[in-house]
């Protein structure tokens, strides 16, 4: 069933206006050692509007990260299609797409500045153009004072910000985030969430965030896609209705509780199913 067929709230994005359009996406992993093939995902449909902040929540193993990998072009789909700005996504990460992973992926042999400059240097961007862009990205994520530090000298949260800077410096129009704050403590998570919202407003990029945290999804998103247990499909899409200019203080809003309660209602049964199905 397509996403918009399930959405009770909000205006669906038309195919022409969609920044990202997913149709009938399915991922089946071939069986190994005599085991049958495993359908991890789909079929599912999804449209993301330009500049939208969309979060995906779902039980463990429902295929959230697989979905992100396919959207990024890092993994192939077994069936269905993904288009970014009207062009099909397959095999390689399209120009204009940035990915931030859950695990620390900063390059430990490079300084913070060189980490952030990595993508631009690969494109042989002249130093005169590169420097201001990197400095701007580091300022945006509050790491200007640590430009010459090495990742091992930074905290986990700061290292994750280095990875975000490395993505931002490329000025992506679509940012895919795979639980980027998963390894951080709760306070840092909230602050990083605020920073992410600020970056989103300032860059105007479309964001797709994979998260386990219902609070994170409820605070940050314009829309939240709730996935079923494996094979992952969208069982609900919740439109938060938050203003674009928002931050973590929303947690005190009565609407916040209503959104998390609605996500949990959907997710509880699916999480139980996933637990029962776990080997």
């Amino acid at each position, binding site marked *: 069933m397509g996403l918009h067929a399930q959405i009770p709230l909000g205006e669906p994005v038309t195919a022409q206006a969609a920044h990202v359009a997913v149709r009938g996406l399915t991922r089946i992993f071939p069986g190994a050692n005599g085991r049958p093939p495993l359908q991890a995902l789909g079929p599912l449909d999804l449209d993301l509007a330009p500049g939208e902040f969309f979060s995906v929540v779902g039980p463990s193993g429902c295929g959230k990260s697989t979905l992100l990998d396919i959207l*990024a072009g*890092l993994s192939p789909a077994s069936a269905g299609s993904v288009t970014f700005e009207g062009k099909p996504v397959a095999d390689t*990460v399209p120009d204009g797409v940035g*990915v931030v992973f859950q*695990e620390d992926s900063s390059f430990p*042999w490079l300084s913070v500045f060189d980490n952030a400059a990595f993508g631009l240097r*690969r494109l042989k961007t002249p130093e005169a153009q590169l420097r201001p862009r990197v400095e701007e990205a580091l300022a945006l994520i509050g790491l200007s004072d640590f430009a010459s530090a090495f990742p*091992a*000298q930074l905290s986990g949260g700061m290292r994750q910000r280095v990875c975000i800077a490395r993505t931002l410096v490329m000025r992506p129009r679509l940012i895919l985030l795979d639980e980027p704050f998963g390894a951080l403590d709760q306070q840092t998570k909230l602050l990083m969430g605020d920073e992410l919202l600020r970056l989103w407003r300032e860059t105007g990029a479309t964001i797709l965030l994979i998260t386990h945290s219902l609070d994170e999804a409820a605070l940050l998103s314009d829309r939240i896609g709730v996935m079923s247990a494996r094979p992952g499909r969208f069982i609900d899409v919740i439109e938060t209705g938050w203003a674009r200019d928002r931050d973590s203080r929303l947690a005190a809003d009565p609407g916040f509780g209503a959104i998390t309660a609605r996500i949990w209602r959907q997710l509880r049964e699916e999480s139980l199913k996933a637990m029962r199905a776990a080997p």
Partner: protein
Amino acid sequence: MTRAGLLRTGIIAAALGALEAACRLGAIDRFSLSPPSEMATSALRILTSGEYTRDILVTFATVAGAALLSVVAGFALGVLLYRLPRLKRAADPFLASYYAVPSFIFYPLFIVLFGLNRWPLVAVAFVFAFVAMAIASVDGFLSVRPILLRTAASLRLTRMETLRHVILPAAAPYLFTGVKLTIVYAFIGVVAGEFILSGSGLGYRIAFAYQSFETATMYGLMLILICAVVTVNMLLWSHEKRLHARLTR
């Protein structure tokens, strides 16, 4: 100097002092073992006289050639084994038992193949050293965290760019250890080969001095050799330490 450095220097100085005293006080026969001060004097005499300069240069040039060949070939084999996991699985038992075979037994074969010149020595050192580099390289490549490879893909790096900008720097500590071992093994291979059958080189001169009862010359040459190997290793070790500190501090 750090506390560890001071301790290190102190231990070496104490050992040399004890040896010096033992030799001078007659606890050790001076004909069997020269006092360190005499070894140093002899080494200095050998270096300044120029009598052995050709042999020293010939040995170092042979070691350099063998080490260079071993690093290049070992690295290439490491890349190949990394890129072809099936080949690696097939080669694993051979690599694991490689150093169980004393490679010096091939020396006569290399003489037959290359003639009575320096090439058999290069070949012995190469056979002894290059597998250490190959093992270190493949271990280094396999140690690269998968997330870094995914990041490389997300940044749209080509296969060569990924190797150059991600895999090589991430595997650098292993590669450095490989280079260090290769140089040490190349020294062992060349000098041991010169001992067995050669008409020139430091190993040959040490063996000749031993057979001629020229104890002072023998210890002087041995000291030069030890100092050279230790200096090269210390230089590599300090670079390796700096690299490791950067990656893990």
